[in-house]
């Protein structure tokens, strides 16, 4: 059934979905980003329990739906991060994982969509700083634009479309811009992270998980190499 068919059942808010968070463009990256800065940033930003659960795939009561959300999301985030770091340029390569994330989990903007938006924001940031292949970041954006509207909530779909065009929730953008910036102090990053984490019921923590997953991936990859 299409959204249009159920007009009588909808609240006005449903009929004209609105963006849950104000979005804006990311500031341009001034120069190359060093891995050392990222290591420092990871230790500065506070990681809420929910974000940690998404990053590790472990959390929630055993066998609960919540724990499954964390496991599903974790596996797909891992796969996307791997592809971004390996410089995968084909749009189609990102599609299955992105499709597995969109519409996944609780909330007005489901967890999976928030993770995708966070990941995409960080991919753009690190691409500007030379740590991620620019065309890989663009491929991910393209996938976001192409995810079918009927597979997630109207609000999340709007958010994905904004992200695919490089506009991100302001609370997320502030955090992303402070990461990899050697002149930013730890305190501002922590404060901005905290502000993001308390946005919405889950959304802030989920957006943060997407962003930090990629940072973690870069740090880990460099360590092993």
């Amino acid at each position, binding site marked *: 059934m299409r959204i249009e068919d159920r007009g009588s059942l909808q609240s006005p808010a449903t009929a004209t979905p609105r963006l849950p968070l104000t979005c804006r463009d990311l500031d341009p990256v001034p120069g190359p980003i060093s891995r050392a800065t990222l290591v420092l940033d990871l230790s500065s930003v506070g990681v*809420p329990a929910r974000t940690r659960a998404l990053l590790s795939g472990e959390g929630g009561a055993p066998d609960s739906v919540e724990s499954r959300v964390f496991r599903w999301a974790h596996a797909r985030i891992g796969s996307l991060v791997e592809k971004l770091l390996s410089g995968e340029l084909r749009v189609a390569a990102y599609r299955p994982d992105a499709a597995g994330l969109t519409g996944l989990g609780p909330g007005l903007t489901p967890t999976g969509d928030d993770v995708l938006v966070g990941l995409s924001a960080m991919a753009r940031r690190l691409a500007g700083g030379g740590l991620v292949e620019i065309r890989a970041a663009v491929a991910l954006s393209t996938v976001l634009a192409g995810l079918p509207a009927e597979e997630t909530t109207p609000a999340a779909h709007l958010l994905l479309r904004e992200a695919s065009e490089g506009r991100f929730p302001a609370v997320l953008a502030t955090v992303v811009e402070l990461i990899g910036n050697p002149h930013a102090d730890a*305190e501002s990053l922590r404060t901005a992270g*905290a502000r993001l984490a*308390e946005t919405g019921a889950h959304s802030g923590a989920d957006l943060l998980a997407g962003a930090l997953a990629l940072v973690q991936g870069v740090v880990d990859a460099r360590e092993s190499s």
Partner: protein
Amino acid sequence: MSATSLLGGPIEVVHAGIDAVAEAPRAAGAPVTVVDFRPPAGGDTRRMALLSELLSGPAAREIDAANARALARLLASRPHLVAIGVARDVVPGMADDLFLHAGPPVTWERMCGPMRGAVIGGLLYEGRAKDADEAERLAASGVVRFDPCHHHDAVGPMAGLVTPSMPVFVIEDRGGERPGTRTFCTLNEGLGKVLRYGAFSEEVVARLVFMRDELGPVLAEALALRGPIDLKHLMAQALQMGDEGHNRNRAGTSLLFRELAPAVVRATADRERAARVLDFVNGNDHFFLNLSMPMGKCLLKAAEGEPLSSLVSVMARNGTDFGIQLASMPGRWFTGPALNVRGLYFPGRTEADANPDIGDSAITETAGFGGFAMAAAPAIVQFVGGSAEDALAATRAMRRITLGPNPGFAIPSLGFSGSPTGIDLRLALERNLLPQINTGIAHREPGVGQVGAGLVTPPWEAFHAALEAFAEHVRASRA
């Protein structure tokens, strides 16, 4: 309702106490409303006797009448933003060696961390100290004097520090019985690391300098061009747009921005300068707080001076003590320890990081909005972990201890009934119900800043002290 009419029936009963006693009227089919009885004044015999005297004794009707007049005067007041000046020039009694702070009087020795941090920041900002160490030595040496904002008709959020060179909003009563009454408040610095939360780093001082050199002068000129702004009118609109005027000021700030923006552009030759000022206002959702507060102070000053009124005219905290004043005894503080705030903490922060309750911002609740208008702002109940129903319940609860609604501050979610206004000391004690205050939480160490936000109440000690003094005052006045 005379006893004669009682015999005419039909009997309808209100019952308090052992339920078995209400069995008989119920059996006879009479309506019985059972009261959820709690001993008044916490059951303390002495306080109960004082309270009974004030509620039911020979003076009670005179107190009622005084309260009615005080409330009427509060409601008739029309605070306007008329100017932006420099504290040294416009705040009465301000001097070069004087720093004003939030709450009741407090010495440097008893000042809490964030208050000390703000004093250090103030000394750095005023150029009286080179670094924090020197500032601390200076503050302890008595080189500057400290005085509550309230002693100078001013109010300040959190630490509430006002130093001589700070720009201040000048609020003037353009209605009521005492037109021309003025109140004052500094301009809001924004969120994050700010002086009012006790931060004093370079960025904090730099922002204060910007506010002194650019924000203040530009807004002053713009306001002169635009003419006075009716703050009660703005507040009334903001309440219908999801603000409560204390922890949420997004609508008020937006409305103010609309009022000021054209004038800022017209008054400023340098476009960049105008843009910086407008960006600053636009970027700070709490900019209107520093207007809602002095507006509240202006409303309450209108209520002051009614000799037998039990209306609470000030509630203010300095992070160490919580003090209240009564409209019948302006200037006299009744204090108790500032309590910890029940609230939500930013991730990584806990109650252990929190400073006890601080700031003059409880003037908003005292004047009948803020926590009292919680029903207007469900968004921030979410923020403190409640539901929208909790917001309605909070406002309804405050009706129980207030003198009446403020029809000027209509709350849509409660059928546009007025916000509960004018705390009656007597009712709070009788009903064992303290005013609910919305507030931010400062870190207990100087220089750190905000760690969360939540709800708090005054300590009972302050109300008990006020009860003793008011009973004595009433006796003396009527003797």
